[in-house]
């Protein structure tokens, strides 16, 4: 007997497949549609014919398009994303070596953003109309108006160069050396996290304000409970829609990490992506985009599942 939550997750997975398919087909198609011979585009017109032929074979250009796609997908599911002609390494290997870095960075941003947003949102809502709220709102507005890469540069200038407290570039895995790892992730994490924090703060504030007007809170008061309990009830309820926003923001974090990796010279997947674009390494591009998409679809499903779980009306009887 499948619980409603499980049924829901299965439905979401089924939704995810077409999305992944759509994305991979689109990338696949777009790359093939690039005007001119992709091999020439990648290697240049004056590359030796054998190399061109090799690339064409690698890309499977001689096969009909659908076959190419199916081949690609079957390989991809097994973990083989092709071989980059530019770096001469397996795409999956390149990605795998960089993935943890990007994940750490994204997680750092996530952590920073929630650390700022939750207190800020709560304080803003409880002090509505007063200066604290104004600060929160202003921060929120500014947060969505400052491009994250510029914020990173400013932080770099201030803390890295002027004050020289934190490193300006590079990365150390927190697994290898936690202290150093955190030092290297601090500025990038703050940069990534701030914009998301602004969005989440705004959302939390508005949801909480709405929730605090609800009638059932009066019922809680009439039990003789403290105002803190009342607030706890309201916050718990207000969080449910905020969870979805947080999940959506993860997408932003993933995208933002690409830029932040550039700003702070962090060797993650984002760098791989940019390099691939610059060197027209379409095989790598395909693979990297596919991996990003998969991550992002996975997070979406988890978030939707969490929302479903938290909302008893949807959850129903188990």
């Amino acid at each position, binding site marked *: 007997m499948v619980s409603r939550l499980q049924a829901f997750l299965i439905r979401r997975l089924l939704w995810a497949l077409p999305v992944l398919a759509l994305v991979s087909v689109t990338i696949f198609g777009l790359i093939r549609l690039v005007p001119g011979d992709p091999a020439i585009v990648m290697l240049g017109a004056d590359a030796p014919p054998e190399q061109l032929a090799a690339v064409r074979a690698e890309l499977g250009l001689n096969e009909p398009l659908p076959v190419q796609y199916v081949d690609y997908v079957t390989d991809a599911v097994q973990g083989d994303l092709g071989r980059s002609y530019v770096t001469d390494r397996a795409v999956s290997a390149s990605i795998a070596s960089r993935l943890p870095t990007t994940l750490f960075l994204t997680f750092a941003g996530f952590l920073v953003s929630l650390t700022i947003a939750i207190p800020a949102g709560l304080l803003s809502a409880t002090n509505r109309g007063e200066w604290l709220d104004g600060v929160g709102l202003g921060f929120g507005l500014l947060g969505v108006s400052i491009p994250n890469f510029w914020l990173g540069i400013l932080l770099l200038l201030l803390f890295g160069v002027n004050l020289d407290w934190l490193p300006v570039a590079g990365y150390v895995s927190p697994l290898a050396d936690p202290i150093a790892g955190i030092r290297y992730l601090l500025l990038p994490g703050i940069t990534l996290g701030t914009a998301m924090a602004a969005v989440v703060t705004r959302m939390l504030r508005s949801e909480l304000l709405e929730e605090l007007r609800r009638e059932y809170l009066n*019922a809680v008061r009439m039990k003789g409970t403290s105002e803190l309990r009342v607030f706890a009830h309201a916050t718990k309820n207000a969080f449910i829609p905020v969870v979805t926003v947080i999940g959506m923001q993860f997408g932003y974090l993933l995208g933002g990490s690409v830029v932040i990796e550039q700003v702070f010279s962090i060797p993650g997947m984002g760098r791989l992506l940019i390099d691939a674009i610059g060197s027209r390494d379409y095989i790598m591009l395909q693979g990297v985009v596919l991996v990003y998409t998969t991550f992002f679809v996975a997070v979406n499903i988890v978030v939707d599942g969490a929302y479903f779980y938290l909302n008893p009306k949807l959850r129903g009887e188990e």
Partner: protein
Amino acid sequence: MADSHTATDERVAATSDDQPLLRVENLRTTFGRREPLVAVDGIGYDLRAGETLGIVGESGAGKSVSVRSLVGLIDEGEVEGSVEWRGEELIDASGRTLRSVRGSGIGMVFQNAESAFDPTETVGAQIVEAVRASRDLSKREARAEAVDLLEEVGIGDPAGRFDDYPHEYSGGMAQRAVIAMALAGEPDLLIADEPTTGLDVSVQAGIVDLFRELVAEREMSLLLISHDLGVVSQLCSRIMVMYAGRIVERGSRKQLLGSPRHPYTQAFLRSVPDVDERRDLEPIGGSPPDLADPPAGCRFHPRCPAAEAGLCDGAAPPTVRFADGDTATDADADCHEATCYAYTEAHPGGDDYDRSAVESIEWNEGVEE
């Protein structure tokens, strides 16, 4: 079953038969600052132990606001006047005082499950929260108590229902659960704010019966708000009629239903179906007044068949006491009163306004409008 009620026990001993459980004096609730809206305009009444008092009136008459003002639930408005619970002042009281009175002294039944329950917690958990807020019980004891309460209000399979969410309860059952939660603190006064509104008529009857049983068995006082006169007349021995923030008539059930004195009460009764008598319904003409800019003098005069220009639109009407006979005591709280000019000398009067029934008239002292 020995339960512990801390401070309330002492106060029970202190209350004598003479002192009312609840004394409301000149309660006034105002909203808004630039254009103040007076939702409750100086009402007062007494409620004694074991008494059942009903407040009826149209929507917007201020009934709900007035009871919320009693227990400090008015957030965006200002409450003035005096509300004494067992001699202790509740208006502007400290948080601690209010908390000790809520739940164990005064319980409130809200209009429906959506207004009373947190949708993300089980009903049982929320009743347990109510129990433990007022009584010193362990989690297990509280849970058992909650299940008992669910059973007491007539919910079948209470142990099973304990773990259900509010949206899984049907309308009538949910209302019973709301009542159970209000009883959790073992209150001496139960305030019920429109408890049957929105329920099917057949379900309503069950709820009314439930209230009756509970009031009898638990020896509670009941303050019932409703626009449904039928419900109020079934449960309340005394009734007050509110209009536009003021009490226009008060008396025993028999007095009010048998010989309504205020034109509004008379009109109200005519607009409601009567089970016994077959007659046409007469809706009350006009619409309720704008409380931000209410009519001068008697608030009802624009819609009143007996309105006299120059009299009813001047100062607030006097309080007319009627000698209806058959009152249990001579106390002020048991009298039959209406605020109306129609019973005064200056008014031409009429068939509906029997001046011979008047016992005394108390005029206001230059009340500002």
